[in-house]
């Protein structure tokens, strides 16, 4: 792959994205850029063969790309064949065209990227872009230019007399021939100016209601997919990861600078990534403690609004001194350490465990109480039954005892009576014996009478008894024609049918 071309393409893409105010990947993805560098297309047709380049992009960027692959820089698009050949040769005896020479200088100047501090001495907005100059006390002046989008996200309102630090690189503006500082970011210089800007923005956003409690989204129950934005380096990310519980969190991390001139841009890009993906339950933004100056990115109006506008809850964990970062005020939840943020995410999971255990207890207690009640009832009722049974048994026993006592008494009396018979009442005994004898005779007589009237005796004498259906036949009507009769005689039964 052509490394030089790749770098060129990347520079061009950054510039283009900035000009359009879009993310880098909206111009071309890394893969596409690399594919272009590898294929180095020379024609539109070749360019269109590369994956990720469709008609629309070819139309929009084709000329710029092709000018680079054929060895030109984007700033030099449109120059003539002869100019190009000039640039390709060693500088020295060559005579340059002005544009080509300035182009060459600009390539060199690009390497002089720097941060410069000064006081704003003039300021003008033209076509949305910022034109201003900064100067020192000794009168040195530097002209600066800033694309509208860069200026907007800087969150700073330039005004004459304001002390600022600009980051970027110098460039000669060909139409005027003047040196201009291509500014990418501006920061306020000095705590005093920062504090003033902070207070002003805070008051304004407060008036707008951006920090109002009713705006805050509720923390999700059982958050699972977490977006994490912080710096890869430093202790905060470790503190966070060490303290977040093992509940199967799915953490999507985007590394971002959290301090310095590129912090705002990177944070913005990361937040927007999650906003477009929309696959997280909560966004976590963490950073270690710092001064107002080092936390500038978190007091940037653009970032604050972006945070307030997130469709998912945002948890911010930023250490701070006196002034709470505006991002923390706009977030749905704010802590001052990454550990606290991690614990906040753990809460519902941990509580769920306790809730399950509590519910189990309550259910078992409830059921246990119901069972206990039932057992009591059974005990009580079975107790009553037992009592009754015992009572009945007792009554029977008592009766039996009384009976046997009576019998014993009677026996005793009879014995006592028996003892007294020979001594006192022989007469009565004699009478009793006579009476018994008479009774015996009476019984014998009765037996004889009974024997005389026994039907079997009659049968033996030649009588018979006819039955029909087990009933004795007394009348003709009892034995209709055809009915079966049992005729009992002295030695058995004759079965017969009535003929007539």
């Amino acid at each position, binding site marked *: 792959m052509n490394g030089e071309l790749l770098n060129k393409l*990347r*520079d061009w*893409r*950054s510039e283009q994205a900035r000009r359009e105010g879009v*993310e*880098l*990947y909206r111009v071309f*993805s*890394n893969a596409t*850029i690399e594919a272009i560098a590898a294929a180095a297309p020379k024609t539109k047709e070749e360019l269109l063969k590369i994956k990720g380049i469709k008609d629309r992009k070819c139309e929009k960027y084709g000329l710029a790309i092709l000018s680079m692959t054929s060895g030109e820089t984007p700033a030099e698009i449109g120059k003539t064949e002869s100019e190009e050949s000039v640039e390709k040769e060693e500088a020295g005896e060559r005579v340059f065209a002005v544009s080509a020479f300035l182009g060459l200088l600009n390539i060199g100047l690009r390497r002089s*990227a720097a941060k410069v501090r000064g006081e704003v001495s003039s300021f003008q907005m033209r076509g949305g872009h910022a034109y201003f100059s900064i100067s020192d006390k000794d009168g040195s002046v530097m002209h600066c230019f800033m694309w509208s989008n860069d200026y907007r996200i800087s969150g700073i309102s330039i005004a004459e007399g304001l002390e600022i630090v600009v*980051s970027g690189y110098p460039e000669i503006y060909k139409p005027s021939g003047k040196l201009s500082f291509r500014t*990418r970011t501006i920061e306020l210089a000095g705590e005093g100016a920062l504090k003033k800007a902070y207070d002003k923005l805070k008051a304004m956003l407060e008036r707008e209601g951006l920090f109002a409690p009713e705006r805050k989204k509720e923390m999700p*129950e*059982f958050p*699972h997919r977490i977006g994490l934005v912080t710096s890869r380096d430093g202790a905060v990310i470790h503190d966070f*990861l060490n303290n*977040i519980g*093992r*509940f*199967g*969190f*799915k*953490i*999507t*991390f*985007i*590394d*971002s600078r959290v301090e310095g*001139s*590129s912090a705002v*841009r*990177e944070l913005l*890009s*990361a937040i927007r*990534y999650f906003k477009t993906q929309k696959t997280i339950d909560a966004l976590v933004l963490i950073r270690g403690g710092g001064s107002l100056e080092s936390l500038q990115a978190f007091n940037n109006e653009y970032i604050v609004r972006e945070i307030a506008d997130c469709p998912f809850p945002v948890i911010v964990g930023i250490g701070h001194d006196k002034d709470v970062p505006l991002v923390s005020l706009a977030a749905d939840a704010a802590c001052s350490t990454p550990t606290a943020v991690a614990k906040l995410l753990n809460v519902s*999971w941990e509580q*769920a*465990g306790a*809730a*399950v255990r*509590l*519910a*189990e207890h*309550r*259910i*078992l*207690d*409830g*059921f246990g*109480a*119901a*069972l206990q*009640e*039932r057992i009591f009832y059974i005990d009580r009722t079975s107790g009553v039954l037992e009592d009754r049974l015992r009572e009945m048994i007792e009554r029977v026993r008592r009766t039996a005892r009384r009976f046997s006592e009576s019998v014993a008494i009677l026996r005793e009396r009879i014995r006592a009576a028996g003892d007294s018979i020979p001594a006192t009442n022989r007469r009565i005994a004699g009478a009793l014996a006579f009476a018994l004898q008479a009774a015996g005779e009476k019984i014998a007589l009765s037996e004889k009478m009974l024997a005389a009237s026994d039907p079997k005796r009659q049968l033996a004498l030649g009588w018979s008894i006819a039955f029909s259906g087990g009933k004795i036949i007394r009348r003709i009507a009892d034995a209709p024609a055809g009915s079966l009769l049992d005729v009992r005689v002295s030695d058995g039964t004759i079965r017969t049918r009535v003929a007539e």
Partner: protein
Amino acid sequence: MIRFVRKTKRLMDKKTNLNESLKKLEQIAAWFESRRDIDIEEGLKKVREGALLAKEAKKRLQEIENEFEEVKKGLEEDA
């Protein structure tokens, strides 16, 4: 890694269930506390249901390794 992903996916499907399980458990607990005369048969049925829910919830709440993924997009600024 793949194992984790699959595990997580399964858990995601069950995610709402954890919430549901907790709600149902709470309802059952409240049922026991809200009445004086509990039918033992019905109570037993509720206890069984509760035990099952609690078991499921506990399974989801046991220690599961987190998944960590870094997104690298065209962020490299030429600064």
